[in-house]
């Protein structure tokens, strides 16, 4: 059962120099929902995620997280938002001078008063959850791509955020690791974590999402449940999968 709007984006514009990348986007994500953003590379999906946690400022528009406008917040106020909304970076963005244990323990040592023993237990539990037992003492350079991503997501979960933003979590992973990661993401979804997923992987999107938004040329061209999207926008999806440039836009196809 989905709840009230947790994230709301209104009249959202982002431009890089003179180039307008995202144009007048408006959508919302309900509590416990998983919304997938699907679109070509460079369409602004990652930019949108970065704006939600204030790593980038939009050119125009508003982003509400639990009713508070992130765009108007200074760095200090954003800290509170970032404890609620976690961001799983595309390449994990693990701190390479720290071990896996230190990477996972960091959010807790920074934001809680928990004892070292409690933190140790929490890290161990989280590593087990993500099938990463025995990696505590390893450095990120000693991990495989899939493990790095899982450690990255595990680190995001340490503060038990309400929302998790996945930035292409399955990119460059083999089918086995992709399946593992999807399992983990579904587990988190079952626990009630709200998420926004950016991906190019249709099968992952279909498995996880409650709704899918198709982005093309800076605009949302379609939004709906996976079934609706598959049924009503089949042509667009097929073109996208075939790798036709601008395949997610009816205007482009008609030319």
């Amino acid at each position, binding site marked *: 059962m989905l709840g009230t709007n947790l994230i709301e984006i209104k009249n959202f514009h982002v431009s890089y120099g003179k180039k307008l990348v995202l144009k007048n986007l408006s959508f919302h994500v309900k509590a416990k929902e998983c919304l997938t953003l699907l679109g070509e590379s460079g369409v602004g999906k990652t930019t949108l995620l*970065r704006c939600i*946690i*204030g*790593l980038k400022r939009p050119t125009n528009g508003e982003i509400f997280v639990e009713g508070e406008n992130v765009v108007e917040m200074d*760095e200090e106020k*954003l*800290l*509170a938002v*970032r*404890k609620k909304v*976690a*961001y799983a*970076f595309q*390449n994990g*963005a*693990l*701190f*390479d001078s720290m071990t896996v244990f230190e990477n996972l323990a*960091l*959010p807790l040592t*920074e*934001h809680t008063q928990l004892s070292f023993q409690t933190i140790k237990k929490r890290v161990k539990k989280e590593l087990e959850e993500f099938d990463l037992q025995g990696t505590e003492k390893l450095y990120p350079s000693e991990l495989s791509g899939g493990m790095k991503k899982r450690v990255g997501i595990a*680190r995001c979960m340490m*503060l038990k955020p309400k929302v998790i933003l996945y930035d292409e979590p399955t990119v460059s992973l083999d089918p086995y690791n992709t399946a593992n990661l999807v399992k983990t993401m579904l587990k988190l979804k079952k626990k009630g974590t709200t998420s926004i997923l950016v991906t190019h992987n249709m099968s992952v999107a279909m498995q996880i999402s409650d709704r899918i938004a198709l982005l093309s040329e800076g605009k949302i061209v379609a939004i709906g449940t996976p079934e609706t999207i598959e049924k009503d926008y089949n042509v667009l999806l097929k073109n996208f999968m075939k790798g036709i440039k601008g395949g997610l836009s009816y205007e482009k196809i008609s030319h």
Partner: protein
Amino acid sequence: MIFFINYLKDGLKFFKGFFSLVTLIFSELFKRPFYYQLMIKNMYDFGYRSLFIVTAFAVSTGYVVTLHIGLSLEKYGAKLYVSKIMIISLFAEISTVLIVFILAGKIGSGITSEVGSMKLTEQFDAFKALGISPVKRVIIPKVLACLIIIPILCIISSMISLLVSAYIGKLYLQLDYIDFLARALRTPKLGFVIFGFFKTMVFAFFIAITSCYYGLNVEKGSYEIGRATMRAIVVSFMLIICGDFVLTGFYYSFIHFGVENVRN
């Protein structure tokens, strides 16, 4: 002409960024949490790992400068003044400017490449995403470590150079070891020593901020890290040269302790 204008543009951009970074550091410096442990770790990295090169430089300059000055003064029967000249030159330039050049290369390049690669691999954004200020956690400990460890390394270098100089004085100029050191230590007035120490702190500040600035501005790829490192070192050298020029001029124009020292 275009070449000159580009240089000017780069210079203005650098100073704007330099002062923005300084402002950012001061705005976060006194806010909790304080990362003492990271500062000490950086001090160890910068200090302990620079000891070998500092010692090598100090031994070499102590030996070379004493021989040059001592053998020249001996012709005029003034070899007793070797110790005085030696200590003045150590505090005025050798152990406050030349050694800082070496440390700018050693420590500054390390900071730029570390910060630059962290920036490229989104580790700065990851800190922010976890609600941690990267300026407080990464930049401030490095700047403070530089401000503490570089003057200490300069003092260590001065002491080693002085001891080597006394030894060379005894070996080549037949000067009494204890008398050499006593004359040397009596020569500089407190103000002159403080000035030397202050100078190294200013230079350490230049090195730390410049290195962090160039590291933070790495954006395009790993090839840029090398270029940023080179720029950081060159700009640090330029700032040290200009800083030395201005500070020494200011000291001899307004403070006068040094003038008395030299005349004595």
